[in-house]
């Protein structure tokens, strides 16, 4: 394997503005709802049966739904998970902070605390799809196609992964934006900064 091998984007999913779009096709849409209701309706519409979904925090639900779309027909188990966002787990951190803010009502919740780390959402995807694979979670101000492209390429080209599921999964205070895609050694859409930027902005 060489570091210069070209890789390809083989599937794209975005979850924004109450819509789930897979490879350019609208898969699911609702009127404006809060994320909790939107995600529940999406879960039901997609016919998912996974009760643990309802224990997840918003970030994990968002990442889970995107992964569900991209992995539904995917057989590859050596699938690395490379995710990033801007707010880390702040959406849940704020919620957890509330549970310890008042000494007269001090009941830190372990079920909330466990989600105060952004990589938990990758853990949830790993468990759901039984992916014992490379994982990393990055934080950037905005989607960073250069770094994401580079890192996914190096994982495939050095044999650390056969495919990579990449995701920008940003959510804070009801505002969410998810952009996920699959990278593999074969395909038609070239995997590079430029195609990622174009796809992200569509």
């Amino acid at each position, binding site marked *: 394997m060489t570091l210069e091998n070209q890789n390809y984007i083989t599937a794209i999913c975005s979850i924004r503005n109450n819509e789930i779009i897979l490879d350019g096709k609208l898969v699911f849409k609702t009127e404006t709802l809060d994320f909790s209701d939107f995600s529940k309706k999406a879960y039901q519409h997609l016919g998912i049966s996974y*009760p643990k979904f*309802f*224990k997840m925090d918003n970030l994990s639900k968002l990442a889970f739904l995107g992964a569900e779309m991209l992995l539904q027909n995917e057989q590859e188990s050596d699938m690395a998970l490379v995710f990033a966002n801007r707010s880390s787990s702040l959406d849940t951190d704020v919620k957890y902070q509330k549970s310890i803010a008042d000494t007269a009502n001090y*009941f830190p919740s*372990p*079920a909330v605390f466990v989600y105060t780390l952004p990589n938990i959402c990758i853990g949830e995807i790993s468990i759901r799809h039984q992916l014992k694979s490379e994982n990393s979670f990055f934080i950037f101000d905005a989607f960073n196609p250069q770094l994401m492209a580079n890192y996914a390429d190096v994982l495939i080209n050095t044999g650390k992964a056969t495919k990579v599921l990449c995701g920008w999964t940003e959510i804070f205070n009801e505002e969410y934006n998810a952009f996920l895609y699959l990278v593999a050694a074969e395909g038609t859409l070239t995997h590079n900064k430029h195609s990622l930027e174009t796809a992200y902005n569509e």
Partner: protein
Amino acid sequence: MEALKQELKGKIIEVLNLEDITVADINDDDALFGDGLGLDSIDALELIVMLDKDYGIKLTDPKDGKNIFKSIETMAAYIAANRTK
């Protein structure tokens, strides 16, 4: 005791986010962990917090949880005997 059991069933569903389960689905002596309701280690920790928050019971040894949380029956009995709220 009946009212407490019903209350507990409702609380468990809410606190542990058991989405597709109703109070009617939980029998008093169903196993809560393992094969029964399928609760896990984080759920057990949440129940310990619930005992404190709602019933004023602080478990001195979290390992006691295993016996207390076996079923709604055992939970209700323990709470009735030890509650301070």
